[in-house]
């Protein structure tokens, strides 16, 4: 089925097959050279990886499964990096034949999606990159280019980057480029030009007598400018000129002393009417604070964040995942248990929100009544976010500025409340138990993760997990989860069984059952099974079953994935 996709498909498959063959060849070569005591260093070295994801799609009217006309899809990637001394060059070959369901459907064809050449000499503090690169300034609130391949998110810059370290403790970055927008048999860039500089100074590294001090202080600042050809738009009775140059900048401070660490960043953006903010000219602002305390057996973190009109893109007219210049992390924890992670995942409301959260970790010492023979681990996590505290403006001011923010604090509209606790206890050398509870209030109007309910969802989630060592190198892991809510799709239950034979084999089966759906016809079992083998850096898995419609999130970024039914084969390999 893969090879029914035309000449381009065969060519891409051949290249990726060659890369796969190379993998085993390289390993043999490595082992041979090691046994022979190494050698050949002058020729430089090549590293790489290969990743394949193939899915088939069968009709399933019960779950509303999506069946594209081609009935199968393939995403494939091959990365190579060649390094010799201070020089490196690399590329990523990508294939979408066609893109798997849930990925941006406009990703098409095969070609090079990323390539770069870099010279980096740490001895003289010089680092130059031409071509594609990823970069982050501070927390990323003003600039972050990054890739989440599993979500199809890639806003790599394409241009020129210079990093200088003139003296120890001082780092200056300058870059100029356009961002990746799309892929159609090759890289397609967005229209905007990004120009940026960042400087960071670690005071302790400036003078020898400061290096050993307990107090460590880091200061940083950056300036990012976007150019996009301007025009005018009509709004109400006004004709507005769209600025061609938009600027954003931030200042940051990091302080560390003993068990305490604090990070503060303040960011501003001006002159950026865009589709995200309904083309208003008001200033964007953000403030982020992290405070942590860590000692043996105990630690906590406090996060506070207010963002106001800080969506910043290299094309003012695009939305959602396209061309973000910056990254605004979500306040909530990225959950790992299926029902907590995929039904109501929170993502920052980029138009504006005020939020606070924290997490505490404590290990109850072993040989105590609560700790038991091995100690008991407790994790408590809290997150809350509301809309901004604002006053709507009228008339011309309303058309050009939208609203006025009254404070940095919470406004009246609740976006999310997420309180959860995790208890972990080792019962004996063969058995570990975990229990997790989540309380969730989730505004589906602020974060539209479902089409079947608009408003606040109140949910309780309980999870029980057991891990049992059944034999040497063999283990059974079982999870039972329940989500209970009166809203949206009602109650859910999930059961997972996973058996592993270390270090190579695993088999797993998962059933998600929407037994409480108000529509009796939608009370469906989503049964999915998989078997896989890992051999060092190579991993192959084959799965079959129903994939639920849901939200797939990584690192605070989420994408809606429609329901589907069929086979899934994944292969990853690094060399």
């Amino acid at each position, binding site marked *: 089925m893969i090879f029914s996709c035309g000449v381009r498909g065969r*060519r891409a498959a051949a*290249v990726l097959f*060659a*890369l796969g063959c190379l993998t085993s*060849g*390289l390993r043999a070569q*490595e082992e041979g050279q*090691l046994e022979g005591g*190494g*050698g*050949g*260093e002058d*020729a*430089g*070295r*090549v590293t790489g*990886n290969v990743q394949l994801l193939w899915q088939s799609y069968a009709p399933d009217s019960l779950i509303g499964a999506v069946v594209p006309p081609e009935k199968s899809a393939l995403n494939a990637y091959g990365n*190579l*990096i*060649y390094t010799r001394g201070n020089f490196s060059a690399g*590329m990523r*070959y990508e294939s979408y034949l066609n893109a798997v369901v849930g990925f941006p459907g406009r990703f098409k064809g095969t*070609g090079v999606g990323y390539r770069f050449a870099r010279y980096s000499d*740490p001895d003289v503090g010089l680092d130059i990159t031409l071509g594609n690169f990823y970069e982050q300034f501070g927390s*990323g609130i003003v600039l*972050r280019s*990054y890739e989440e391949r599993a979500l199809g998110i890639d806003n790599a810059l394409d241009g020129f980057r210079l990093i200088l370290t003139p003296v120890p403790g001082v780092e200056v970055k300058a870059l100029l480029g356009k961002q990746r927008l799309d892929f159609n048999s*090759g890289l397609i860039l967005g229209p905007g030009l990004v120009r940026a500089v960042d400087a960071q100074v*670690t005071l302790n590294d400036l003078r020898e007598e400061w290096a050993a001090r307990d107090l*460590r202080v880091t200061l940083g600042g950056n300036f990012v400018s976007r150019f996009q050809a301007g025009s005018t738009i009509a709004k109400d009775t006004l004709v507005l000129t769209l600025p061609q140059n938009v600027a954003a900048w931030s200042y940051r401070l990091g302080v560390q002393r003993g068990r305490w*660490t604090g*990070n503060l960043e303040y960011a501003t953006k001006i002159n950026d009417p865009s589709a995200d903010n309904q083309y208003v000219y008001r200033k964007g602002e953000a403030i982020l604070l*992290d405070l*942590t*305390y*860590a000692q043996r*057996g*105990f*630690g906590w*973190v406090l996060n506070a964040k207010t963002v106001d009109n800080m969506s910043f893109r290299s094309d003012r007219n695009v939305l959602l995942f396209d061309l973000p210049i910056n*990254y605004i*992390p979500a306040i909530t*924890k*990225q959950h*790992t248990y299926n029902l907590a992670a995929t039904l109501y995942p929170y993502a920052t409301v980029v138009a504006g929100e005020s939020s606070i959260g924290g997490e*505490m*970790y*404590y*290990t109850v010492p072993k040989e105590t009544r609560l700790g038991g023979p091995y100690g008991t681990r407790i994790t408590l996590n809290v997150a809350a976010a509301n809309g901004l505290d604002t006053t709507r403006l009228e008339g011309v001011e309303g058309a050009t500025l939208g609203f006025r923010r009254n404070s940095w604090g919470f406004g009246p509209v609740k976006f999310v409340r997420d309180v959860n606790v995790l208890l972990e206890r080792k019962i004996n050398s063969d058995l570990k138990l975990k229990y997790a509870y989540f309380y969730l209030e989730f505004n589906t109007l602020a974060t539209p993760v479902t089409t079947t309910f608009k408003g606040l969802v109140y949910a309780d989630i309980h999870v029980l997990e057991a891990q049992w*060592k059944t034999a040497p*190198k063999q283990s059974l892991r079982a999870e039972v989860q329940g989500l209970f809510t009166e809203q949206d799709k009602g109650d859910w239950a999930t059961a997972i069984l996973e058996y592993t034979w*270390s*270090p190579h084999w695993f088999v797993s089966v998962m059933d998600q059952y929407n037994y409480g759906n108000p529509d009796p016809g939608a009370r469906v079992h989503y049964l999915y099974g998989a078997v896989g083998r*890992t051999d*060092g*850096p190579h*991993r192959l898995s084959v799965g079959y079953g129903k994939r639920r419609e849901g939200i797939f999130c990584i*690192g605070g970024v989420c994408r809606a994935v429609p329901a589907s039914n069929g086979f899934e084969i994944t292969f990853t390999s*690094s*060399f």
Partner: protein
Amino acid sequence: MQSLLPFLAPLRSVRSVGFVLLLSLFAWDMAAQKLPAVTLRDLNGKPVNTASLAQSGAPTLICFWATWCSPCKRELNAYMEHYAEWQKRTGVRIVAVSIDDARSSSRVAPYVSSVDWDCQVLLDPNKDFARAMQVINVPHTFLVDGKGQIVWQHNNYADGDEDEVFQQLLKYGRK
């Protein structure tokens, strides 16, 4: 000139394939991998050049992980149960590289302290080191021998994998 572009398009793909094959030729001549040089920060904010992570004469285990990755935490917790013995027998040093981004990187230090990992922890918030090491998913573990060469790697974690790690450490560890 414009009208020629559609005819040139297939050549672009041919060039891409050629580029891959050219790079592949280098691969047949390659030496065993060494650690790439990327500057990361430790939990005290001090810069660390990753090329210097390898120990002279003893192995180093580099484990990519994240606070949101359950198998990663199971893996490192399992290694820590054996770390003192592994160090005694093989001289190994473990380096845990977190790929948590700005959303969760502030959770790394308190988590690590609470579970008492007695190893070096580095932050790789934009995956620069992970990318240079060709890491696709976490957990991904690399064993670097006493000559600074990557001699073994493993993607994924299942209970009992620590036995294989120990066998590898004995193979490449301090004799």
